[in-house]
């Protein structure tokens, strides 16, 4: 046992399997949550039929879980695995197969640098993260925007008009919102520079948000940079291709957009990638703006309990944000393509620059 726990390689392997498992599970259940919430909002019950033989037969819990659709993701997953996988004849086969992989991997990669908790021991605080690297946020921004290559590739490799349009839209949209997103993050890091020593490490940022101003107001970024938070959130919606910004998919005018020609498991990869993106995006938002695992006014205890608690707090906040994603999707109609571009370039970008300059001056004033 000791040997296993002391071997860094095996430990890292266990940790990453655990994290991947949790995130994949969350992605599967995010799909269920999406369908359920969508159903409730529209006055429907949502998926409520799928039943596991043994668990579903338990007296009271069984029907309850079945009504809640708890078993639905398993059926969905199984369906994706065993479905026939047709490849249309007109596609560019190599890139066609490559595209779902390319869009899935970045989504999975970003989770490595996202801290999701902390472990307080006698000799200091340890972050719970797969890779605690100093350029954390840069890494996330860089890798997550690689995901768009998968979509563009899919659009192009499909070799038909609707996916192609979807791919083009995706690239334009990503570029537009990436700028505002990056700019809206800068003030956060400048603000916490005194506490973090100016590093881009996500863990330090979250830790810095654990303090309180005058011992009352929790130092969560969202409280004193609401505009930045809003810009980041909107860009996040755009970057994850969520309604009202789901231009690349836009099923009313583009059939299914970039994934029109995809089916079965390849489509499943796109789907999973999208939801993983949402989960990681929510995680980043929680870490940067909502204080991560910090609770207002309450400090976390040391040891295992504190670690578990910190992860739970982080997960609850993330889930709340995922709910917001779903909730917004079933509330707002999709923007028109030119409106999306307008909003990105003419509204969000200037706003982000103004926000940046404002906090630049503010921070300079405070420090002098």
């Amino acid at each position: 046992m000791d040997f296993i726990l002391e071997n860094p390689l095996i430990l890292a392997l266990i940790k990453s399997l655990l994290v991947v498992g949790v995130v994949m599970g969350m992605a599967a259940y995010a799909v269920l949550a999406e369908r359920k919430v969508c159903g409730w909002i529209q006055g429907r019950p949502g998926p409520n039929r799928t039943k596991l033989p043994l668990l579903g037969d338990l007296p009271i819990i069984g029907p309850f879980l079945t009504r809640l659709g708890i078993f639905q993701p398993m059926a969905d997953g199984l369906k994706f695995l065993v479905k026939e996988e047709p490849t249309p004849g007109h596609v560019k086969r190599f890139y066609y197969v490559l595209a779902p992989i390319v869009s899935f991997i970045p989504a999975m990669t970003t989770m490595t640098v996202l801290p999701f908790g902390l472990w307080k021991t006698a000799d200091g605080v340890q972050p719970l993260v797969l890779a605690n690297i100093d350029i954390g946020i840069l890494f996330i921004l860089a890798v997550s925007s690689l995901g768009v290559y998968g979509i563009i590739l899919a659009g192009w490799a499909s070799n038909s008009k609707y996916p192609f349009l979807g791919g083009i839209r995706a690239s334009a949209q990503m570029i537009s919102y990436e700028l505002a997103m990056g700019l809206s993050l800068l003030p956060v890091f400048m603000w916490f520079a005194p506490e973090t020593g100016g590093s881009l490490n996500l863990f330090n940022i979250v830790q810095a948000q654990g303090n309180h101003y005058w011992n009352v107001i929790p130092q969560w970024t969202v409280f004193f940079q609401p505009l930045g938070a809003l810009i980041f959130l909107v860009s996040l919606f755009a970057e994850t291709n969520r309604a009202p910004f789901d231009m690349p998919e836009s099923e009313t005018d583009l059939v299914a957009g970039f994934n029109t020609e995809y089916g079965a498991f390849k489509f499943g990869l796109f789907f999973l990638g999208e939801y993983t993106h949402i989960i990681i995006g929510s995680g980043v938002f929680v870490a940067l703006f909502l204080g991560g695992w910090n609770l207002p006014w309450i400090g976390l205890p040391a040891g295992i309990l504190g670690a578990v608690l910190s992860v739970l707090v982080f997960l609850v906040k993330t889930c709340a944000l995922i709910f917001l994603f779903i909730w917004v999707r079933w509330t707002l109609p999709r923007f028109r393509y030119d409106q999306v571009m307008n909003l990105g370039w003419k509204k969000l970008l200037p706003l982000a620059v103004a926000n940046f300059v404002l906090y630049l001056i503010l921070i300079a004033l405070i420090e002098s």
Partner: protein
Amino acid sequence: MATKVVERKPLSIWERSYLPQIVGGLKITFKNMFKPTVTLEYPEERPEIPPGYRGVPTLVRDPNGREKCVSCQLCEFVCPPKAIRITPGEIPEESESRHVEKGPQEFEINMLRCIYCGLCQEVCPEEAIWLQDIYSFTGYSREEMVNDKQKLYELGGTLPDPYYKWDRKKQAELEGNPHH
């Protein structure tokens, strides 16, 4: 006519930011989440069929158990998709309703053709064919989807019609008034 000029205030910046509308929409959808669902969960719950519903066409008997159809074949002719096929037959001598003279030997409605238009019911002079409340009719083969006479009467049942047209006719004939 006096016209009323509607004052259109320009939107304030806050309104133009689109945010209040988003918040309003979010509020509405959030409230909706807790309202009871309107779904009819089909196989367990069944819809209530309103009177006058045009379901599967069926044949009916009168309360005495006499089949009402006199095999006039009007429905066969009116049926737009030609779903009905009737083989007319004579009513045997010893039957009580011999005076009706004709009745269907075979009566088939092909439910793969029927479009539920209700014209057969409308045209029938005897009120013998009725589109009732069966809204779901399924089968595994084409043959199964053709309702024969027996099936039609099974589905149709009895029409609670107290007029007894043919009994009166017989009565009148017996009383020496055949053209009643």
